[in-house]
């Protein structure tokens, strides 16, 4: 049975995420999380070397506030409304597949220890994987003009063909990585 402390059902979660997107429209803004990466680059001085970062980052303070809220939300969710015994109950077949790659089963954890435990973070290989993954996400999202929030949620909701193309790209890349490349990274 579902409880507040376990995994929230997809229909509740999807409804609320759609609601977040619509709430931002009502507040006169457009939902998009990856724009904040560009804003942060600008704040760090990237405008000195690239035109792309020359804009007044203060116009994006509202979005940075959403980021701050999201961090607080993550903190609240993990510390006050989580019961590991009822969380991340994934397909047993998935767990078997992951074992073959030496990736630990969730057992109520959101992320595998193989990626984010203190021990894993001392491995140059794991640090390289995290950095490479971040690099691909950061580069790809700007090249595609948006991420899961900007394209998959906002763009598709507004029936934008470019967003559909981008989302197809997300899945091409994700499927290639997950099926073909991931086993080469973890073995």
């Amino acid at each position, binding site marked *: 049975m579902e409880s507040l402390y376990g*995994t*929230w059902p*997809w229909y509740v*979660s*999807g409804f609320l*995420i*759609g609601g977040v997107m619509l*709430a931002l*429209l009502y507040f006169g803004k457009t939902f998009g*999380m990856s724009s*904040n990466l560009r804003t*942060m*680059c600008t704040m760090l001085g990237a405008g000195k*070397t*690239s035109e*792309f970062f020359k804009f007044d980052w203060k116009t994006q303070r509202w979005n940075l*506030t*959403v980021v*701050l*809220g*999201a*961090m607080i*939300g*993550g*903190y*609240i*969710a993990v510390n006050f*409304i989580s019961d590991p015994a009822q969380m991340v109950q*994934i397909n047993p077949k*998935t767990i078997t597949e*992951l074992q073959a790659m030496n990736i630990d089963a969730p057992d109520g954890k*959101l*992320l595998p220890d193989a990626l984010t435990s203190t021990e894993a973070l001392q491995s140059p290989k794991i640090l390289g994987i*995290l*950095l*490479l*993954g*971040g690099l*691909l*996400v*950061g*580069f*790809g*999202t*700007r090249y*595609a003009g948006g991420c*899961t929030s900007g394209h998959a949620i906002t763009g598709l*909701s*507004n029936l934008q063909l*470019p967003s559909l193309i*981008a989302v*197809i*790209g997300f*899945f091409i*890349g*994700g499927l*290639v*990585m*997950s099926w073909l*490349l991931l086993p080469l990274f973890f073995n």
Partner: protein
Amino acid sequence: MKFIKFLFVGIVFGIVLTKSEAVSWYRIYEMFHFQSFHMFGIIMTAVVVGVIGVQIIKRTNMKDITGAPIVIPDKEKGFTGYLVGGTLFGLGWGLIGTCPGPMYILIGAGFYGIGVILLGALVGTYLYGVLKNKLPH
């Protein structure tokens, strides 16, 4: 405080993404291997709610909180950038299971190792800015 509403929206977003486990590497792996309907259900429900909401906004010419008409900017026409950029994004998403929203959420939730991913994403964004004019879009 005009920023309070954005803080509130962010908090709801962070809680929902954590509690739906869309921030979980396991859920993303499971999605790409079609071993659960969960993530597909989340995205589809969000889009259905979004499409209905956007249609209502457009057909009733709804105004935003300041009284200005709500405008959702159209995405620029194009193909290559969306497909290639999207595919690169997907390669990263499939590897680390973290898209830009969850990066911040997970750091807030105490997974400080995700800071390495955020660093990578900032470098990636910067590289795109530098190379933008040389890339096909």
